[in-house]
């Protein structure tokens, strides 16, 4: 339980330490959602695979680049815990990318949908 509490606090502090980035992401996401929601009806479900593919690509890119971004190399990952954590971090980046891609993809598909 304490470890969950600690992890939640680490995430909060990371967000505070990187607040310009977090704020920029939130603004872009909000803008895309507003854009998409104002153009209803949109093919949200049909365009979901596009967002998932975009998220997967970013996730794969993250898996390849995150170790190098913090001064390590992929060859430093020698323990299952390393791979599990790299996967979790990359999944987070992938999910963030998918969240941006989904409204954009739905908005781009609006004409054909209409």
């Amino acid at each position, binding site marked *: 339980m304490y470890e969950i509490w600690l992890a939640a606090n680490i995430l909060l502090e990371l967000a*505070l*330490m990187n607040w310009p980035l977090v704020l920029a992401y939130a603004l872009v996401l909000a803008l895309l959602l507003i854009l998409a929601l104002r153009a209803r009806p949109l093919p949200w479900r049909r365009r979901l695979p596009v967002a998932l593919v975009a998220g997967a690509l970013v996730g794969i890119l993250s898996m390849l680049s995150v170790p190098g971004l913090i001064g*390590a190399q992929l060859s430093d990952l020698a323990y299952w815990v390393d791979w599990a954590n790299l996967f979790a971090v990359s999944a987070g980046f992938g999910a963030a990318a998918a969240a941006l891609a989904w409204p954009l993809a739905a908005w781009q598909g609006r004409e054909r949908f209409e």
Partner: protein
Amino acid sequence: MTRNSREHADSAHLHGMDRRSFLRLTTASALLLGINSRPADAAALKTAAHIVIAGGGLGGIALANRLSRELDGAKITILDRRPEHYYQPGYTLIGTGVWPRSKVVDAVAPLLPAGVNWVQEMVAEFDPVANSVTTDSGSKIRYDFLVVATGLHLDYAAIEGMDTTAIGREGLASVYNGPDGAVASWQAMAAFRDKGGEAIMTLPATPMKCAGAPLKTTFMLRDRLLKAGTLGKSNISFQSAQKNVFGVPRINEEVLTRWQALGIGVEFEHKLVGIDIGAHRARFVTPAGEKLERPYDFIHVVPPMRATDAVKKSALAWQTGPMAGGGWLEVDKETLQHKRFPNVFGVGDINGTPRGKTAATVKKSAPLVAANLIDVIAGRAPQLKFDGYTSCPLIVREGSALLIEFDYEGKLTPSLPMIDPLQESWFAWLMKVQLLKPAYFAVLKGRV
């Protein structure tokens, strides 16, 4: 433990109106996520007590945040002149070229809770009989309860010829000497890395903070030489003033095994007693009194450490036993309450308890000190007992580390039992360079 649900979302990194706005936004998000809504066991304890916290490092600020939240009506005074807070666990990263200086320096003011009286003076004298402290400007401040969180004294003066202003030149490094010392240490290491040569790494005989730092610096120096292609014409020798290189036997064996494989030589019971910086020569003495002189191209000096003068000269220090020589604070190792003055507690490096301290020690002990102090204020005996928990991400090269955690007994106590503390991992490196500083700030703010 009494605890109210009021939390401060102040951040050391956020200043100015736009940041405040963002802070409100994130605090609101945190509230939605439940991060700022720890269960309230009970209402804050009402008291008119005056609590003085001597020292504004991690332990002092964490206590100020916790006590201001968990006590209602208390007067809390924190004494420390320094306007900047240094994230000391980052010194080894600066000193080995991983981080810039800016990553470890933050303003103190935003870290202190509203209502706490911050006196920007240092404690010069403790008088626990009269329940008062005297600051270096001569002001006398009376207290009902005292938390000693002064940190320790780096006794560079005990090394004949040592000059901290020379760190960064003539192959002289010492990552302990503040952020500027760490930056200068990297300059010395980088210059040595490019040429190679004879490197001496030292370890003092005294109790010390972050006992892993000399080991990390040694591992990283070898890694830097390897990557620069100068390892072949270099020799690294670790000169320990003790009979080991780390106090926890299992970790000591692990490090020595790794160093043997990496070609790092170790000599024990060689205490650094003097240095001729211009001539690049270090003088050591053995317990038998034998004097040795060693030439070097690069030396990492770890100074002997002792209690601050104010504690050492006061009645608060151990009067007998192995901790008396260094003047360390005489606290019970479990409750962290002073053994002779029950209205006094200690937190952090100043405590005369077994094992070296790290930020992780404060993470575990600051909530306990707050709870036990509140027990004493409420007229109860202290309830919680500290097991000596300490942890150290022991860097073995850039990109990999061991995540070791242990207690007073020297037992390995991994927080996540499925992770082998002796298995080097990228995860431990990730913790060291990305995740521990956020955790540290959560400790400062009294949340974890």
